[in-house]
């Protein structure tokens, strides 16, 4: 008897998982179809555009085969590296997305809506850049962790403020994190034009020193670096923290039902501040990964778009760290490919935002997807993402 029930639950679990994965997949598909319609309306060929998108994100399969052939026959790596360049570039693009998506997902788990990832990202990047270029004469083993830590701390501080205001005064984090974004942008304008400006004409920071750069895996121009693996590690850490520790349990309890959590003796205030600090830290790490691993300097508009993308990622990944990694990879491929699409098919990169907006709606409303694709209703508990204006 126990055997059959075990089998049944296994079967149930599998079908639940299937629908769990099917809905996001169909949501992305629907988003892409709508994107194709937009491209069609703009008078371009969607197939051509998506072809350019694919080549931009994964590379041309023929090039890869050719590259491998040259490598095996002559040992020459240049063609092979050129063939895998688009693919590694997508992973590079996905790296900050993983961090930023984790940031928002962590907030969701505690019932907090962190729209401030963009500002936290910027502050984190600035802090890392500052430590990266200003401190000289340190060995890499000290300098690099210090620069990463600075970014995480900067972001954490930026996230903690709205967290504290929410916990202590009940001020809604959605508005406050957005305000913190704008404050961060203005602050960075000032820093980049003043104290942190490099000697050149443009309002950018000096380059970080080589000792603070995240090491690159392949020779130039491939920018694939250690940051990607740190991001994967961070995802596992968040998973472990949320699902294997007491504190993580508390956070999820507060997110599921703050009143019940309070009644059970958990401090809602402490958890709000903690989660926003951690979320800010993760978003700051996104900036860190971008500045130390890819650009090596920070300029204006450095974080543009990451905040909203992060929300989409967290929703798409169902606020689960591993789901976030998967959706970050997807977005990395989309964004990286869209650059190619822009130059090849003259489709502005903003098309991705349009697709993202649609995907978020589809994800948030699985009923629409079920209705569109005539799927059977699956009864399950709905997770509460946000609640009103606080209190």
């Amino acid at each position, binding site marked *: 008897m126990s055997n059959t029930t075990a089998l049944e639950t296994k079967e149930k679990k599998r079908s639940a998982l299937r629908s769990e994965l099917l809905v996001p997949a169909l949501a992305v598909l629907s988003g892409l179809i709508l994107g194709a319609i937009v491209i069609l309306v703009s008078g371009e060929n969607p197939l051509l555009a998506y072809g350019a998108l694919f080549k931009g994100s994964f590379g041309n399969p023929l090039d890869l085969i050719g590259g491998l052939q040259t490598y095996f026959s002559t040992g020459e790596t240049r063609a092979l590296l050129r063939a895998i360049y688009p693919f590694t570039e997508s992973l590079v693009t996905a790296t900050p997305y993983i961090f930023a998506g984790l940031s928002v997902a962590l907030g969701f788990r505690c019932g907090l809506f962190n729209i401030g990832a963009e500002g936290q990202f910027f502050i984190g990047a600035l802090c890392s850049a500052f430590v990266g270029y200003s401190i000289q004469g340190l060995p890499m083993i000290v300098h690099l962790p210090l620069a990463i830590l600075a970014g995480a701390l900067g972001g954490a501080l930026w996230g903690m403020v709205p967290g504290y205001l929410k916990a202590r005064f009940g001020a809604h984090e959605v508005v406050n994190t957005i305000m913190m974004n704008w404050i961060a942008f*203005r602050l960075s304008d000032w820093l980049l034009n003043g104290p942190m400006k490099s000697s050149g004409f443009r309002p950018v920071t000096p380059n970080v020193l080589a000792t603070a750069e995240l090491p690159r895996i392949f020779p130039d121009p491939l920018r694939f670096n250690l940051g990607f693996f740190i991001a994967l590690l961070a995802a596992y850490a968040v998973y472990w923290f949320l699902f294997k520790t007491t504190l993580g349990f508390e956070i999820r309890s507060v997110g599921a039902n703050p009143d019940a959590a309070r009644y059970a003796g958990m401090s809602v205030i402490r958890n709000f501040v903690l989660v926003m600090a951690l979320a800010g830290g993760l978003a700051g790490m996104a900036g860190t990964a971008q500045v130390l691993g890819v650009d090596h300097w920070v300029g204006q508009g450095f974080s543009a778009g990451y905040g909203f993308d992060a929300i989409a990622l967290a929703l798409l990944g169902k606020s689960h760290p591993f789901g976030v990694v998967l959706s970050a990879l997807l977005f990395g491929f989309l964004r990286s490919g869209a650059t190619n699409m822009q130059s090849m098919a003259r489709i502005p990169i903003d098309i991705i935002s349009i697709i993202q*907006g649609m995907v978020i709606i589809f994800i*948030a409303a699985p009923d629409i997807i079920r209705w569109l694709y005539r799927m059977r209703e699956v009864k399950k508990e709905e997770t509460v993402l946000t609640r*009103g204006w606080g209190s």
Partner: protein
Amino acid sequence: MTNSTLEIGSTAEKRRRISFGVALVVTGLAIYLLFAVNTQPGALTTFGLNLLGSRAVEVSDLVVPALPAIYLLAAVAVFSGAYQMARGVRSTGWLVGILAFTFVTAFLLWGARDKSFNLTGMLSSSLVRATPIALAALCGVISERAAVINIGVEGIMLIAAQVAVVTATVSGSLYVGLLCAILIGGLIAAFHAFIVIRFRVDQVVSGVAINIFGTGVTSYISSRFMQAAGDKLNNSGTFPIIAIPGLSKIPVLGPVLFENNLIVYLTILLVIVMHILLYYTPWGLRTRAVGEHPKAADTLGVNVYLMRYVNVIIGGMIAGIGGAYFTIGSVGRFDEIMTAGKGFIGLAAMIFGNWNPIGAYTSSLIFGFADSLQVKLQILRVPIPSEFLLMAPYIVTMIILTGVVGRAVPPAADGQHYEK
């Protein structure tokens, strides 16, 4: 039991009384240390009361000896702080008012010492800059009174701004532009209402999606079509200033209130109309009932869903007007992400205004004031980097949200789905 709660209540009260008093005393001291110390005796501050090119009767400018006035303001702040600590005043609104007034005035006296500062111009631009914020706030008020949070105001305004300028440029009529902006605003809001009510999508998430979509679609259209077309799509001109005969002749008030463009007047009108509708008509009563206790309203035969649809759509139309302000109401052309967080500031104004139209408008004026203050201070060359002055509206929003939201009470069912 009752006793102990009473006591706790009174200690909390006492603590708040003291902290407010301390805040005022500190403000007084800050006024002294920051402004009085840095002002030479005999310095004069001129507040200009005439606006260049306005129809108002000219009056002489207000010339104030800076140092004595700053001393006076510091004294007022310290005195009211001391009085508050000793006796306690019931109205916190007054205290916040005194605090803000003394500090801002002293700041202006110091900033504009030996110079001239056009007060009328500043008030006039406050009103203009408050307009989009107020319209966003009104959109929030009307939707949330029916318990639907619409955080997508920003996206709606952005799209409406673009639609307004394109249709106005193509058709050659600003009124067509305004109408199209209203229609598109209503349309997007209808979509929001539809997925929120029919598919029970999380309201905040849907709003965020609208914002992302709005940013994406406007930037897409802007870079794909508008940049290449240049003035053919993106140069509409703006609504002309209409001076109300007679009233615009009043000094100071005339140029501030009665020499504005259509959208500014429309906003003031909307505030009044919405106040009357919400509080003095059956429709308003039903709306508020749906927002507070939908089940009860449903039991009494009010169509909850219909009320929500109608209110959210009207809200979207108002946000559409707000979007039109950005292009055909002020600069006559569209730039990417030109709303710059004004929609969210509007939501803060709604909260600060306690979810009622007049309150929302008043708080929008405060934000408008902070916004235009920042511009004027740059002109005065106050020795503060302009980037920090630009932060002012956002910081003010946070402070207000923090100080007030605990006491502001949203509609009871705000943000909740209703299932029959």
